[in-house]
């Protein structure tokens, strides 16, 4: 079973159409991985689906990097 970090990096790579090797913990979706604002909405939708949770908009807005996504999922789901 892959851990949260691996699962999130895989989703980010898939959603943003980038190579998984480019996806680092500190990568910003917009600044480093070329996401536009709609991509970030879809990314959150994909995370919700993968981890079977609902991420409220005001929380979603604070998830700007891979690490922030990992932290959010770790703290708010039972996936770990």
């Amino acid at each position: 079973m892959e851990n949260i970090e691996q699962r999130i990096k895989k989703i980010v790579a898939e959603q943003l159409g980038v190579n998984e090797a480019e996806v680092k913990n500190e990568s910003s979706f917009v600044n480093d991985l070329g996401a536009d604002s709609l991509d970030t909405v879809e990314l959150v939708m994909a995370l919700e689906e993968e981890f079977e949770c609902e991420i409220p908009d005001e929380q979603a807005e604070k998830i700007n990097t891979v690490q922030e996504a990992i932290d959010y999922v770790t703290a708010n789901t039972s996936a770990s």
Partner: protein
Amino acid sequence: MENKITLITGASRGIGQAIAIKLGQSGAVVIGTATTENGVSTINQYLEKSGIKGMGIALNVNDAEQINHALQTIREKFGEVEILVNNAGITRDNLLVRMKDEEWDDILETDLKSVFRLSRAVLRAMMKARYGRIINISSVVGAMGNLGQANYAAAKAGMFGFSKSLAREVGSRNITVNCVAPGFIDTDMTRALADEFQQSLIQHVPLGRLGRPEEVASAVAFLASSAAGYITGTTLHVNGGMYMD
């Protein structure tokens, strides 16, 4: 439009009904909304009579809860909405100097805010599917104004700006957003007008007659079809030449 899941608000009569039948005959699965149970059974009756797959559903477009509930029902029975036709609308005519706040608010809420609410509610699934068609039924009045209808004209003109903005936002996801702006169409809404007013209206229509609901429905069917896949952020005027853009 084969088996495309289509939601049409205000589908119990008039233009909405004509759109529902036209899209249904083109193969779409049609879910039509009405505010009353009576309206719902009217929809169910004509869908069945025309051999169209789908159903009528009760919905007050001003109620966010009801919108979620309706979409949930549609999801369970048919799947996610792929084509949305925002057709529901009302009028509360009055000269502006006499217009009450409620008359303004009712129209903006029912005719414009509902478009925002419903579009937002179907958008995520459309983004995910990389396919969607949103067609907003505006009015010639939104383009040229009409005395006694400052509220209605504001709401209908608001749809143009809304549609253009949304078209820009979601174009990259293969979702198109357009308006159809009917002129004076032969429906209950225009039949309520006095005869001499109707006659004077027709004088301003180069084609010399009221439009038929089916003629509006054809424009909607075109925008919903794959033939219109490269058209977004625009308005199709169906008004007999009464207003030329």
